[in-house]
């Protein structure tokens, strides 16, 4: 039996992707005209906050694919091999979104957007004892180095993992010994990536990129929370592409069994996200220390309470109730719907993480901006990811057919 292993990007697919990108660019232009080009800092902050939220969110979501690859590699997982090329293709987008994201972040830091990163205003910091205290960590130089280094390391290590996977496409390994060596080599590189991941996403990076927007506030849970949010959205993205390829007659060997397991990840990590959400929120609420509750004030009770509770509903109750049953996780329609909902829900999560602080005016009142623009920017990123993932998928066979664990994946059953 021959298999269709070369993906040809359908014309309609690219048309949609490009249209979405056009929508994104229009939204950015619209935002620039209505706020970014204005003279006052708060209007400008609204423009940059949108770019920051979208670029950071989508970068972490596509990067979650490489985390999935490396985690399953270290755990010697075999079941995912039937669709392994999908997360590979998604992770190939990391350098593209990474460069965009880094450019935006550096533009904000060095372009004088102090309403977003208060700590980047050296004049202001001089009179703010807390920010002065934090200067050793929150300063432009360190921010720039950490940002650039992270994007480079993710891109290079991800490239190496994909290289290793493709190196077998035309040269199958002959002996068990060779296969063992190959697995070992993968393990070493994956471990390297995981260490970098631990030092970036799981600790320092969310503090710099996101938590420092509320520069006075702090929470030790913040980075793990951010990780949970983007990992579950990352799994949802993988599910979307698997369903898309199946519907187009590709990925013969990825069956309902595989989709079922991806669905389990979406379910389990939605609950895990909720666990971290609850722990962070409850502990701050319970201890009731003003320095900490200040973060949740505009979110849980203020202007952002609608978004705050809506995203909680979407990210917790919906996956819990809808993805609970076996049938739901094996149904293309349900999985597609839930994947879209989860990606949107965590986008909202990032929205309420980023916007309240820059959207607070001189009087201390927090506003919710016209969110339609941000939807537009998000669609632009979606289009970009669609386009780039499509290209990446078409460049390599869809089946990692010579991987030592591929046969296990073929007879995988839940």
């Amino acid at each position, binding site marked *: 039996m021959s*298999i269709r292993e070369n993906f040809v990007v359908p014309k309609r697919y690219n048309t949609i992707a490009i249209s979405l990108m056009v929508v994104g660019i229009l939204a950015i232009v619209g935002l620039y005209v209505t706020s970014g080009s204005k003279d006052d800092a708060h209007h400008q902050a609204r423009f940059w906050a949108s770019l920051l939220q979208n670029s950071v969110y989508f970068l972490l979501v596509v990067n979650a694919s490489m985390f999935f690859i490396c985690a399953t590699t270290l755990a010697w997982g075999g079941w995912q091999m039937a669709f392994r090329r999908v997360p590979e293709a998604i992770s190939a987008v990391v350098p593209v979104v990474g460069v965009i994201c880094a450019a935006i972040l550096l533009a904000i830091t060095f372009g004088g957007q102090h309403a977003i990163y208060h700590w980047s205003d050296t004049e202001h910091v001089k009179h703010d*004892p807390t920010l002065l205290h934090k200067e050793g960590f929150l300063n432009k130089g360190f921010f720039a180095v950490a940002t650039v280094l992270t994007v480079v390391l993710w891109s290079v290590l991800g490239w190496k993992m994909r290289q290793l996977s493709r190196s077998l496409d035309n040269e199958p390994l002959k002996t068990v010994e060779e296969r*063992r060596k190959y697995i070992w080599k993968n393990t070493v590189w994956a471990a390297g990536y995981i260490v970098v991941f631990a030092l970036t996403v*799981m600790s320092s990076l969310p*503090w710099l990129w996101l938590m420092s927007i509320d520069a006075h506030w702090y929470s*030790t849970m913040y980075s793990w929370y951010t990780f949970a949010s983007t990992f579950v959205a990352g799994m949802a993205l993988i599910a979307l592409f698997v369903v898309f390829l199946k519907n187009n007659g590709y990925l013969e060997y990825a*069956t309902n069994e595989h989709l079922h397991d991806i669905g*389990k990840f979406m379910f389990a990590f939605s609950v895990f996200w909720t666990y971290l959400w609850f722990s962070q929120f409850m502990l701050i609420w319970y201890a009731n220390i003003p320095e900490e509750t200040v973060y949740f004030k505009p979110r849980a009770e203020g202007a952002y309470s609608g978004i705050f509770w809506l995203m909680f509903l979407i990210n917790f109750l919906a996956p819990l109730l809808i993805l609970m049953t076996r049938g739901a996780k094996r149904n293309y329609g349900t999985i597609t719907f839930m994947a879209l909902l989860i990606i949107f829900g965590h986008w909202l999560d990032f929205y309420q993480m980023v916007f309240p602080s820059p959207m607070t005016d001189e009087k201390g009142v927090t506003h919710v901006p016209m969110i339609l623009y941000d939807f537009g920017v998000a669609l632009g990123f979606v289009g970009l990811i669609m386009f780039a993932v499509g290209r990446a998928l078409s460049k390599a066979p869809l089946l990692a057919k010579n991987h030592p664990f591929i*046969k296990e994946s073929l007879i995988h059953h839940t």
Partner: protein
Amino acid sequence: MALLRYESQVRPPLVDGSKDYHQVTEDICRPVEAKPSRLWWMGFLISVALLIFGIVSVTMEVMYGTGQWNLNKTIGWGWDITNFVWWVGIGHAGTLISAILLLFRQGWRTGVNRAAEAMTIFAVMCAGQFPIWHMGRVWNAFFVLPYANTRGPLWVNFNSPLLWDVFAISTYFTVSLLFWYSGLLPDLATLRDRAKEKWRKAFYGVAAFGWTGSTKHWQRHEALSLVLAGLSTPLVLSVHTIVSFDFATSVVPGWHTTIFPPYFVAGAIFSGFAMVQTLLLVTRKVLALEDYITIEHIEVMNKVIVLTGSIVGIAYLTELFMAWYSHVDYEWFAFKENRLSLSSPYGWSYWLMMGCNVLSPQIFWFRKMRRNLLVTFFMSILVNIGMWFERFVIIVTSVYRDYLPSAWSTYYTPTIWEVGFYMGTFGLFFTCYFLFSKFFPVIALAEIKHILKRSGENYKEKMDEVEEETTEEFGGKHGHDHGA
């Protein structure tokens, strides 16, 4: 014909040697059916002696009150709660192995799950002792249960995480016990059917609940396992989460930090696996079960140890960093003066914790070390010492110098009865474990048989032909459509 039992030959076998189903039964039932060895008796008697020491210590405490312990106004929690959290933590690996690894379909769990689950139950029993006897007037212990009472408006405090502990731990204990025991049923039936003595037949006959091994029984058994695994998975997280709430809901520097819940869970799994290693390294040797608890099992568990140890390490550093970053003087004082500073009374305990929990497990990045039994044994002890000190650091260094310098306590040392109580829980733990290893199969017999034809050494060797098939050939022959 569709092949359902294939596994890549790259994976090392999980059952060594040339075994068939009968041989597996013989190997695992042998220690239960043979007379206990002299080594067993020695270990058992030492454990009982420790248990008696514990009973004496607790009796002293009940007779004369908690004044027998060296707690004081500033350090209201000392050794007793440290020990409580330590034992609860150890009780995490069993359910993680049986539930979460079952959901993740990790075949290697079958070699170690039975002993780990038993260990979990005993560890939780030991943990429970501490809050119970810490109550002082232990005859009023039932006051923690929220039942309609005649004490008027006097109800338990539902706002208190200590009460949540009561629910969390009793639920965890119940579900773990059910999980362990329902897994034991088929094995107990095997022992019953093999029994020659009358008492043995009667004992295992009652214990096996009339298991016949019919298809219906198996079907229900498998369904039950899955349901219990589903229930246990959130429980693994919830128990230590709620234990962490005991500290984190407060406003005590060093206690109130949002990362506590997941970090406590990771630490609990870390210490639980260390204890599993300690016990299994001895068990496999004494009961000659090296073919079932192979070096591969040891290596995999060492990987879990380096992973969870590193997660805990990130949490330590995050906490430390945030203590500085937060710009809260009290928080920073707790870390800088009470923990980091080696010239402070307890500074050494912080560094001991860092050394044992974060630095030392890093040697498990090396394959040679992961497969070295001596190193593993030594490390498993070291990790448990480190994890004990983690709780000690959290509990004592945060409170012995709190907000009010006039209340700062002098050096806290436990009395002989606090030490005796702790030793007594070791007695309880090992007495139970020795009895378990004598009367129950320490390896899940039925589950080993379940993976034998896929992961057994002699069966894997027969897979050569399948291993050489190309992916297309293999897919054509064995791939099956699941309604996709």
